[in-house]
């Protein structure tokens, strides 16, 4: 580490120094990481792939992979790799920021944008303990995660993420989802399908419970015994049904149950409510529900649920049955949905605001400091490119709060330059030579840059540990920004200040051809006064 109290004064040329090499290295890495150039036709093709539904995409990618020359000679690993690469390209178009088009080529970058900028839905789900599962253990959460994953995949939305958060919570992210309501309907229900039998008294009449409807008894047979379920249209009336096939043990149980209950009623319940739908599309009330009559034992292991379903209801139920029931009920604790329009509006405005803000700061720096201000601006450009490249490489998901953090870190990066310049100016005013003034100015500024940035890092660290996801996004961009600003201040600003030819001078101090400072007139006057005394 550099010692702030003892500025290094090297007599050797700065070219031998590591800093310019580091700057060029970082710049090359940043540009190659950040920017990509592809022919327009290739990009258009990716965009076409990205617009497809996941199923279409899979088929199309498979077709292309198989059509690749030399496909027959590839081993499994190479095939998979090729498939993944093609898939990645298609996904990339979903998240692509085109910078410039020229000569039939497209210059673009692929920063990862958050849901608030891209549009999409984020749900925070909480698993609730139930009578059967009184405690949410990691195993239970694994079950919940799997089922939620299955259900979301069935929605046909690409790039969905299901993430554990804490002991009993899941974060579900669905970028670009068109119908969040459908997603919530599908995710939020437990989808526990139960077969129950009606309870009869000795005379064979159904017992009427306190709610005015028949009393139902559990049979232990649930949707978990299904191998497969499928929605299909009924022959007439435009209604749909859900046909199902039991797994072997379920088929056995179902056979035994139906043999025992011939002539009696069994009920099918989804999450405690009858599967039968009334005219309003809602489940019929428990009071009215009578279930279905078992006419003969069903031994084939297949059956169907006919409950006045509409097409959507039947397909939805089939999907849920196939995805499996949730081991415990879940509750949607938090929902954040941003429409694509608002996201587009936010990103455009943030980009304009960021651009205008940075440009205004650059003008300010040149007005205040002149030539060194230009150097600060070059350092600022290097800073911006490097920070964005790190965002892309990590990758950091950029949210609105993240962009705010980045813009704030720009302020801190500029601060480092201002500190160095002010100190250098003071050193020059104290009569130091140009080289010494820069080195001393830098050395003295460094301790405050270092201490203040360490403090910012402490704040960022705490935010990352304890913050919510929005706050975390902000802290990550700020922390990366602060770290990079230290680097650019140490390397770029310092080295480039030395590059300013002595003949141009700095901070109002001018030098003649021999490198001797030309004193300002008022200083002459003061000195003349002193001499006269």
């Amino acid at each position: 580490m550099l010692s702030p109290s003892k500025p290094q004064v090297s007599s050797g040329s700065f070219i031998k120094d590591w800093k310019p090499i580091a700057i060029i290295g970082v710049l090359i890495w940043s540009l190659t990481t950040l920017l990509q150039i592809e022919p327009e036709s290739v990009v258009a093709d990716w965009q076409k792939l990205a617009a497809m539904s996941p199923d279409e995409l899979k088929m199309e990618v498979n077709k292309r992979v198989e059509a690749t020359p030399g496909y027959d000679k590839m081993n499994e690993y190479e095939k998979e790799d090729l498939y993944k690469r093609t898939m990645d390209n298609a996904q990339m178009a979903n998240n692509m920021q085109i910078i410039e088009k020229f000569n039939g080529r497209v210059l673009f970058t692929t920063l990862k944008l958050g849901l608030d900028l891209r549009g999409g839905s984020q749900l925070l789900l909480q698993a609730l303990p139930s009578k059967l599962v009184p405690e949410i253990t990691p195993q239970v959460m694994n079950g919940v995660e799997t089922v939620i994953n299955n259900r979301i995949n069935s929605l046909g939305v690409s790039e969905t993420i299901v993430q554990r958060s804490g002991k009993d919570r899941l974060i579900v992210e669905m970028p670009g989802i068109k119908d969040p309501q459908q997603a919530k309907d599908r995710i939020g229900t437990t989808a526990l399908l139960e077969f129950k039998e009606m309870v009869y008294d000795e005379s064979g009449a159904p017992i009427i419970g306190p709610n005015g409807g028949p009393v139902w008894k559990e049979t232990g047979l649930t949707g978990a015994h299904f191998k497969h379920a499928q929605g299909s249209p009924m022959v007439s009336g435009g209604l749909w049904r859900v046909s199902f096939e039991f797994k072997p043990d379920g088929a056995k149980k179902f056979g035994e149950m139906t043999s025992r209950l011939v002539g009696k009623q069994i009920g099918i319940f989804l999450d405690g409510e009858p599967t039968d739908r009334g005219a309003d599309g809602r489940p019929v009330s428990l009071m009215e529900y009578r279930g279905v009559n078992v006419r003969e034992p069903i031994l084939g292991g297949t059956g169907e649920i006919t409950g006045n379903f509409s097409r959507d209801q039947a397909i939805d139920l089939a999907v849920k049955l196939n995805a499996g029931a949730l081991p415990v009920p879940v509750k949607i604790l938090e929902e954040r949905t941003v429409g694509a329009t608002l996201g587009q509006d936010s990103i455009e405005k943030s980009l304009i605001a960021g651009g205008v803000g940075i440009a205004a700061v650059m003008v300010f720096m040149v007005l205040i400091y002149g030539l060194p201000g230009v150097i600060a601006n070059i350092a600022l450009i290097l800073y911006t490119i490097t920070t964005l490249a790190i965002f892309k490489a990590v990758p950091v998901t950029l949210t609105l709060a993240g962009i705010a953090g980045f813009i704030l870190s720009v302020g801190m990066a500029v601060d480092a330059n201002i500190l160095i310049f002010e100190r250098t100016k003071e050193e020059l005013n104290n009569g130091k030579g140009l080289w010494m003034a820069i080195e001393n100015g830098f050395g003295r500024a460094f301790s405050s840059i270092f201490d203040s940035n360490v403090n910012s890092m402490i704040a960022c660290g705490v935010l990352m540990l304890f913050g919510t996801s929005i706050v975390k996004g902000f802290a990550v961009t700020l922390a990366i920004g602060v770290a990079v600003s230290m680097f650019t201040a140490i390397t770029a600003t310092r080295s480039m200040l030395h590059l300013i030819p002595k003949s141009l001078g700095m901070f109002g101090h001018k030098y003649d051809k021999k490198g001797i400072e030309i004193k300002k007139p008022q200083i002459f006057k003061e000195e003349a006064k002193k001499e006269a005394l």
Partner: protein
Amino acid sequence: MKVKIDLVKYRWIWLGVSGVILVPGLIAMIICMTKFSSPLKPGIDFTGGSILQYQFEKPAPLDTVREVLAESGFEGSQVQQAYISGNEVIVMRTKAIDDEIQKRKLDEDLKSKLGEFKVLSVDKVSATVGPELLSSGLLALVITFLMMVGYISYRFQFDYAVCAIFALVHDVVALCGIFAILGLVIGTEVDSLFISAVLTVIGFSVHDTIVVFDRVRENVKYVGSKAVDENGNEYKKNFGHIANDSVNQTLARSIYTSLTVVITLSALYFLGGVTTRDFVLAMLLGIISGTYSSIFNASCLLVMWREWKGTMNQKPKPKAA
């Protein structure tokens, strides 16, 4: 910078200016406490609730929207008009919609009464999340404070750390006070982004104060050295003079730096998205306050502390980075 500030002589003026800003804010926070039982008007992130922003194709009368909401079981919901990119947007604030079927029915009713609409955003937070957010935010705050005191005590001295913390408490109170006033006057609510704004302001405030203290630390070796005032009288420099010199030496930097941050934040405020406007405003206010407190309050307090302790000649231990 030709301006010279006499920090020590006019200390009560500098502290008084802070008082003028802090006292109304504190009063507003007390009023908020009685009104919302929280020092700031809490948004749905803390209380639980839903905010729906819909853009209707045809102009939607607010009263009709209210009626539809009441019919769907959301009586007492707030309905407002807002403009996003020049388009009229209906903002509905309701209690947390826990029942998805109810929400679906509301959407259908709105569609049948008012025509097609585009969903701009839906935010729903259940009441259980709010207290957790607040407690984790406060925990983050306390830990940040402690770590900063630790770091500044290590790099500087304990009294520097305490004064830096005072300056930042000043900024946090100023910021919260102004938002409490805004909450009472125009109904500005604070959300989870506000917590990150407060934490940023803390970071920036200490950042600023450290730059000034760094100069004090550097100059403190001149305590006891001889100097000549403008009337030609010789005097021995005490800690107050040193603090004065240090603040004046860093004045240009303090002002330039805040100006650059104020420039970028203003650009974000006036040109950026609606969603982050309050967040940016909070940072803007906090940073202006942070600059003021680092120039006028932190060193002032440090001088008063040292005078009170009578240990003005005590030098900070030398530190190596």
